[in-house]
């Protein structure tokens, strides 16, 4: 048997992928193979338990281990790093728990918190830096101000307050309230310094965040805030801008795009 044939056969036996017989192996070899087979399953389930500790707590041992075993079948590990075994686990849970959206959303939150934990370090624009750059801004400069957000940041629309579940489990408290939100909201995950953070955005902030994330100007954001909040919209837009800078999600203020020559 060639080495690659042996490895394919051994892999199938260890992971349970396909029917493999080992009648030509002696009892000692088969006993040894069982060690590798048990280790494969237990190592990966343990890895998922560690990566999704709060989801595990939320749904319990039996449901979690069954979901983890299912995930290993539908998404067998391919990456060099064991840490990637949890990629897509939220999607697996979404299929397995269609009536409990908080399960997949909590798993998404846990996964993204880990991703931002090791995301690339990049400079952020702090309050002093922003003040220096905007010190002599004219009204026109404020209106045309654009922002670049840090690249490691993640966001998604959620139906449930999975952040409250996270907090309750962390504090070892029971969560009695209904976790379903009144309306879908945006959950933001980012890293402040070396500490991963998350928070739910207000509807206005989410709209402003999306607008400026897509290249819109601070003037566009102020306009959107005024439409939603009336006269206090401008003040609220300024407060939101300051909040973003204080939380370390703004990396820089790019120059306005150069005017395009007429076609």
């Amino acid at each position, binding site marked *: 048997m060639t080495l690659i044939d042996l490895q394919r056969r051994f892999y199938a036996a260890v992971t349970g992928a396909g029917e493999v017989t080992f009648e030509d192996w002696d009892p000692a070899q088969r006993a040894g193979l069982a060690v590798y087979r048990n280790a494969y399953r237990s190592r990966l389930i343990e890895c998922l338990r560690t990566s999704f500790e709060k989801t595990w707590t939320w749904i319990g041992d039996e449901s979690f281990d069954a979901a983890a075993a299912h995930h290993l079948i539908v998404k067998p590990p391919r990456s060099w790093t*064991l840490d990637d*075994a949890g990629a897509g686990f939220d999607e697996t849970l979404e299929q397995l728990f269609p009536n409990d959206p908080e399960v997949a959303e909590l798993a998404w939150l846990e996964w993204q918190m880990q991703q931002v934990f090791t995301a690339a*370090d990049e400079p952020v624009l702090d309050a002093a830096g922003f003040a220096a750059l905007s010190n002599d801004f004219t009204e026109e400069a404020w209106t045309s101000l654009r922002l670049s957000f840090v690249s490691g940041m993640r966001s998604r629309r959620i139906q449930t307050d999975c952040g409250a579940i996270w907090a309750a489990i962390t504090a070892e408290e029971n969560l009695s309230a209904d976790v379903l939100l009144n309306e879908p909201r945006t959950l933001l995950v980012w890293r402040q310094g070396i500490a991963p953070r998350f928070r739910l955005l207000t509807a206005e902030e989410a709209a402003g965040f999306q607008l400026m994330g897509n290249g819109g100007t601070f003037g566009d954001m102020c306009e959107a805030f005024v439409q939603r909040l009336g006269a206090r919209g401008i003040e609220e837009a300024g407060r939101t801008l300051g909040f973003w800078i204080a939380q370390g999600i703004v990396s820089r203020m790019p120059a306005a795009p150069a005017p395009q020559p007429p076609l």
Partner: protein
Amino acid sequence: MTTIQPFNGFGLGLRRDHYADYMAGAVPVDFVEIISENFMVDGGRPLFTLDAIRERYPVAMHGVSMSIGSTEGLDAEYLARLKRLADRVKPLWVSDHLCWTGVNGRNTHDLLPLPYTEEALDVVCRNILHAQDVLERPLLFENPSSYVAFDAGMTEWQFLDAMYERTGCFLLLDVNNIYVSSVNHGFDPIAYLEGIPAATVRQIHLAGHSEGQDILIDTHDTPVCADVWALYQLACARFPSLATMIERDDAIPPIDVLLSELDIARRLSGHDARYAA
């Protein structure tokens, strides 16, 4: 390609439970060994911590994912990340295991056994030469614990010797792994040690194991046993220049417990106890 100078010293595996002790620079060891994959990340706290510890201690890098026995060649992204980390850490050396971890683009994340055949030797040596070329340094490879042995032309120690001859790589001898495999497969661990050329060994791992049903399992969650200490003494007599490390991966005790175990190694080694901070 440069060689790896012998480093006589006594160290521990760097584990998260003990980060604060190391950050304080209060752990009396000559070096620490990191699991390379834990730090092959883009940024954030792991690299921040590693940089701080690196300022205080020499670091050896030990990997689990190179899959040097892979018939499909080595993962280019993995090697590139490992190279970036090695350039950052400037380690004493970079090591991994004599094993394979997956096939057909899939990964078991286990150290799976190779048949010690000429074909496997060709595959392993080709991969070692490639890895050493990319990393621009000779590497160390560790003998694994194994639970399945194949009928093959070579013993494990003959295979390791041939690897060294063909590629110039060095060896990280895990004395517990020698013991575990010798019990599981019925070979003489002393013959194993005698079959390893003295010039090839740069580091020794010491660890504990557990007893399964008719099989020993390399669990790294218990203290080093008496039989392994005895084998370690023989190894130290045979390999006069090497670094010794206690490797605990599970049921990790307070740092003082591991330091006490490391003191046993210092005492038994007959080598100079290097730590003089």
